[in-house]
């Protein structure tokens, strides 16, 4: 490192005259007596390069005359390097910003766009000038106020990360939006980083996966039904064959006058027995279709519902579905076969979700668990779907009633047998605004069985 003094002292000897490369500032105005400033590079004897900002200052006398000129030539190599770094960092930031494949916009508190990266600019197909200063919902969605599903307004207040999926019906695309506030020293939100990722394709795949899964489920159920009918047919054909043969034999014995009373008695007994056998087969088949009688336990209704909701989230892929759970009475107890009642809730949620499958907005299921009248515990599952036509309302609980292409019409009839086996009741009502609510009541409270 050359000694600091060497340049200043060496000025008179002018070892640097030939080294003046740049005059970043030439003669400047006479501010604070600055006569001129020079900015140049010197190469020292050891070949190291230093940057010098040389200034000449006039010191005026009492009558304004130039009393003397003072020259300072400080070494500003360090500052120069810092500036270069800052410039490089700015370039780096811009390049990075522009190379993010998601659309990134930086917004102020007022929703106005302060920055937009290349992806955003090309998506909006607008030059930067037309974007900057405009409200994000105007440039993005062509709206004059923030759209309801945008997470921005919320995070401005909570000052934390927020995200959501929104559907842009102008562009017919799904976006995953994430927003992060930039806070100032006081912790106030001054900017919001708004990222939008086009997830239309993955939404489509999700929907397809959901439909495929649903179909597998149905095929399985259909197969099971097929097996059941096959075994029912086989089982029932046996006693039917015997009954018919016995009856025909008896008739022939009568016709030929060879009927023996004891034989007739025996035949009738056999017919009665085979009839009972057929009845037992039908009974056991019913219990096959109905879920098996399980063990009833005492359980907290809220726990039962909560568990289903989390299972439902894990098990089903329903695009952009929102499930809200309202649990009002934490001590509400029911005496139930948990698996069966959870099956009922799943069936109702499944139907609710399926009713909103084609919807893009407001896909919301609300599940309420609350105390009902007459010591009942009530569960309500509401959706925002199309509702149920008046003439169908009376038939939806019938076995095999369905309006769906791949529906079996088993969900509700099964649910009804379960609820009724619990001494409860299940029914449906169309909501006043939109959609349907299914309710079921179960006997609540302590049961001291004798």
């Amino acid at each position, binding site marked *: 490192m050359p000694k600091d003094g060497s340049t200043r002292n060496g000025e008179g000897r002018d070892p640097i005259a030939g080294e003046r490369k740049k005059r970043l500032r030439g003669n400047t105005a006479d501010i604070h007596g600055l006569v001129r400033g020079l900015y140049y590079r010197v190469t020292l004897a050891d070949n190291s390069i230093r940057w010098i900002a040389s200034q000449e200052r006039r010191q005026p006398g009492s009558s304004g005359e130039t009393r003397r000129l003072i020259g300072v030539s400080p070494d500003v190599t360090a500052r120069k390097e810092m500036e270069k770094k800052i410039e490089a960092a700015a370039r780096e930031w811009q390049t990075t910003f522009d190379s993010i494949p998601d659309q990134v916009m930086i917004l102020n508190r007022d929703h106005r766009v302060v920055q937009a990266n290349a992806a955003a600019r090309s998506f909006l197909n607008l030059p930067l000038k037309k974007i900057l200063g405009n409200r994000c919902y105007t440039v993005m969605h062509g709206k004059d106020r923030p759209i309801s599903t945008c997470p921005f307004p919320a995070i401005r207040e909570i000052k934390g990360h927020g995200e959501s999926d929104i559907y842009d019906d102008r562009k017919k695309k799904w976006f995953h939006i994430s927003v992060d506030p930039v806070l100032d020293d006081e912790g106030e939100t001054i900017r919001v980083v708004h990222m939008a990722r086009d997830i239309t394709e993955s939404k489509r795949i999700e929907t397809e996966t959901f439909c495929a899964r649903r179909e597998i489920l149905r095929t399985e159920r259909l197969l099971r039904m097929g097996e059941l009918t*096959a075994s029912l*047919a*086989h*089982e029932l*054909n*046996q*006693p*039917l*064959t*015997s*009954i*018919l*043969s*016995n009856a*025909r*034999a*008896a008739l*022939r*014995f009568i016709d*030929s006058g060879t009927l023996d009373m004891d034989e007739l008695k025996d*035949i009738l007994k*056999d017919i009665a*027995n*085979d009839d009972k*056998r057929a009845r037992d087969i039908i009974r056991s088949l019913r219990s096959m279709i109905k879920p098996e009688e399980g063990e009833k336990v005492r359980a907290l209704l809220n726990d039962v519902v909560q568990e289903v909701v989390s299972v439902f989230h894990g098990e089903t892929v329903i695009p952009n579905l929102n499930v809200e759970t309202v649990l009002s009475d934490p001590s509400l107890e029911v005496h139930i076969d948990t698996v069966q009642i959870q099956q009922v809730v799943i069936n109702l949620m499944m139907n609710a979700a399926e009713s909103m499958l084609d919807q893009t907005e407001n896909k919301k299921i609300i599940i309420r668990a609350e105390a009902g009248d007459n010591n009942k515990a009530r569960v309500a599952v509401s959706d925002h779907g199309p509702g149920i036509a008046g003439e169908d309302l009376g038939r939806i609980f019938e076995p095999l009633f369905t309006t769906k292409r791949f529906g079996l019409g088993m969900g509700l009839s099964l649910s009804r047998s379960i609820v009724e086996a619990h001494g409860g009741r299940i029914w449906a009502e169309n909501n006043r605004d939109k959609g349907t609510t299914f309710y079921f009541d179960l006997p609540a409270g302590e049961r001291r069985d004798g």
Partner: protein
Amino acid sequence: MAEEKPTVFIIDDDPSIRKSLLRLLRSFGFEAETFDSAEEYLERERYQGTGCIVLDVRMPGIDGLALQNELNKADYTMPVIFVTAHGNIPMSVEAMKKGAVDFLPKPFDDNEFLQAVNRAVETDRTAKIRFAGTREILRRIQRLTPREQEVLRYVVSGMPNKQIAFRLGIAEKTVKAHRGRIMKKLEIDSLPELTRLAEKAGIQPL
């Protein structure tokens, strides 16, 4: 020998089916015996009279189709009526190919069953008669000397006596004498009859 009642053998693992079918067959005027499995039926001594088998397709152990195979292998053929509570077409086709006369899906009505049993018994009767006839012919052919059997083959080929004599290097008169003895031993008196009989006995023309 008095005309014996045909016997129907019912093989079914379901006791109430066995009992009711037995009754129905008796009301038709048939003799019937029941077996609760194919295995039990195979234990029974060979039945020589006419009859048929009513066989349940699906049974534990040896099932209907397998029993049919066993019986075919043992040359113990009797027409089989398959009854099944869940018939399917490929299965019935297979059974028919192997000589089942009928395939009745349960439940069947009495007339259907009666017709099937009648058909089966009739099939069995003609088969037995044909079989008995063939056996008799073979017995008669055994009576012929080797030379006579040789002559018989030439005769059924439609060769005139002269040619036969030439071929065998014997006198035409001798051939004539052989023919007379053949007709006598086989208990027939015309050439067409002889040809038919030879055909039944499986004697190939030269």
